[in-house]
């Protein structure tokens, strides 16, 4: 048996939209099969995962709050992946951005260091510091790649572990709340260091708007700017890009800086808007899930927004399923992996006619 791939002429718009939808449907079927094998009802599981979170106000807000960091990180990653730069350490850049941005919140706690300026500058400074810190952290794999030819895949990933351990140390050590009964957490931020809520008494915070703005800006950059064209060209046809005089190295640094900044911004928005203090762990793996979001959204910002909502739904649904059906949380992770595989496979069907030939030599 062998699989034959025949290139299609021009990929149709229809197929490009249908492919991720079909991939999601196949992933659902596989997930349902696993749930059935675990002795639970797949129909009930589907309801808990994908329907119930959509029926209540608080869970809708929760979806938006979880989709925001995913969309923000994935939008940054779209620049990298389109340019064939493989930043898989967004999780680390998220953590460093959240920690350094949060640090400003700690320094200014209780009115310290504000003087005549007042407190209006604290939030913007935190956001900028978070984005810059994320970008700076992404510069390590960027410079190692362009100066020394070290693969950014491995270095960016190794730096995730380093960032996690560093945050753990800071929160247990120098940044620990002295009055916190020895819990490994910092003080709670003042309101001047907390992103405002959009709904009174709800969970929806201004970080969600940041994500929407980022998606809009990225859409324009990809569609309308020379830089966006450069990113697409270097990824799709590196030789042509060289002839056009685009520098691959400069671009690699630029896209890593963008994705690092986006991840860092997502980190500080999460810390300031959602958590309200620094803890030993500030991310349920957003940096890795965002990779799936980027591909499910076909590396285009509007698609990423939809994909982020879908994956945020699996997070909320996963928590619900754990309570209602006693399905372990790992189920969500396994499903996300299956989903990414299905998305990648579906992508092939948009570019090739796939025929399975039985018999004959490979």
């Amino acid at each position, binding site marked *: 048996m062998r699989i034959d791939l025949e290139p299609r002429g021009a990929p149709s718009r229809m197929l490009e939209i249908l492919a991720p939808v079909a991939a999601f449907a196949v992933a659902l079927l596989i997930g349902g099969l696993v749930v059935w094998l675990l002795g639970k009802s797949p129909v009930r599981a589907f309801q808990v995962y994908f329907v119930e979170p959509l029926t209540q106000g608080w869970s809708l807000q929760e979806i938006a709050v979880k989709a925001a960091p995913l969309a923000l990180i994935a939008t940054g990653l779209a620049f990298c992946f389109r340019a064939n730069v*493989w930043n898989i350490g967004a999780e680390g850049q998220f953590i460093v951005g959240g920690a350094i941005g949060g640090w400003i919140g700690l320094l200014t706690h209780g009115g310290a260091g504000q003087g005549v300026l007042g407190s209006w500058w604290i939030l913007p400074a935190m956001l900028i510091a978070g984005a810059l810190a994320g970008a700076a952290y992404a510069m390590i794999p960027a410079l190692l790649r362009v100066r020394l030819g070290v693969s950014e895949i491995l270095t960016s990933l190794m730096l995730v572990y380093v960032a996690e351990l560093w945050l*753990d140390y800071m929160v247990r050590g120098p940044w620990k709340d002295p009055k916190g009964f020895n819990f490994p957490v910092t003080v709670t931020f003042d309101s001047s260091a907390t992103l405002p809520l959009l709904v009174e008494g709800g969970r929806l915070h201004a970080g969600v708007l940041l994500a929407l703005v980022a998606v809009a800006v990225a859409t324009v950059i990809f569609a309308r700017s020379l830089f966006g064209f450069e990113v697409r060209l270097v990824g799709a046809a590196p030789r042509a890009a060289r002839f056009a005089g685009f520098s691959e190295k400069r671009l690699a640094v630029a896209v890593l800086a963008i994705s690092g900044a986006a991840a860092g911004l997502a980190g500080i928005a999460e810390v300031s808007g959602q958590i309200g203090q620094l803890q030993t762990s500030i991310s349920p793996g957003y940096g890795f899930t965002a990779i799936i979001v980027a591909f499910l959204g076909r590396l285009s910002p509007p698609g990423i927004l939809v994909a982020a909502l879908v994956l945020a739904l699996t997070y909320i649904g996963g928590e619900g399923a754990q309570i209602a059906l006693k399905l372990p949380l790992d189920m969500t992770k396994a499903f996300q992996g299956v989903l990414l595989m299905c998305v990648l496979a579906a992508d092939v069907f948009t570019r090739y006619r796939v025929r399975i030939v039985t018999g004959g030599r490979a």
Partner: protein
Amino acid sequence: MNPDILQLVLFTIVTAATPLLIAAIGELVVERAGVLNLGVEGMMIVGAAVGFAAGYASNSILVGALAGMAAGMALSLLFALLVVGLATNQVASGLALTIFGLGVSGLAGAGFVGLKREAASHLFIPGLSDLPFVGKLIFGHDFFVYGGLGLTAAAWWFLTRTRAGLTLRAIGDNHVSAHSLGLPVRRYRVLAILFGGACAGLAGAYLSLAYTPFWTPGMTAGRGWIALALVVFSSWRPWRALAGALLFGGATTLQLHAQAAGGFRVPAQFMSALPYIVTILALIVLSVWDRRGTTAPAALGKPFVPDR
């Protein structure tokens, strides 16, 4: 340092190096065939979970190790279907495999958290294993360690001394030419990927059956990724992978002993970060040394669609 402690340190370096070596040798063969499988971490952790589960249920280390290998192979088959069958992006497919593997390992190992079983038995040759200092170091390990060494030798022999190995390397360097010559590119790659999966699964089973020996979620702690770095560090040569594994194993061990001894005034988290930092430094040093340019297989990571 007194010789007993030195012997203990060297002994633990070897045990810490073994899972890295086994996984790296598997990935080395895969990459020599021109395929980059970033799913090592995922295959390894599923190997650890399934290996422990099977070892616990059957009360046999051998069954556990075989089950771990089979689990790693099952995952790598999925990967082969994607990247060889459908020519998907290898980086993204490998990441998908790792994410999937981390989830599946949690499901497979859920019932076995907190259970413990006896570690794999160690070789004992009366007389030889009792030799002072070197006895335990050379003749006193469990069979995984000797298996890892044998695997290294076998991979070296296969890649450099057999016709099939030559074919595999040719495919990894230029799949289009190899295809034109009538070499079965895709068949070689699928087999190489399966071999890599078996090795990663075995490396994981070693962790949960001999190294710790129990199962905890996330217990591979990035070792799969370090094994991937090790392949680059080795310049795709098996014996250099052995040297690299001992170096990386040394970094892990240093961390453990420094924490136990407490002599250093360095926070535990910094010591835990050491293996990852050493990995990055090793990649830097290698690239500074190897100014002649990369020794990577030329077709590494490129999708292959055969023309008819």
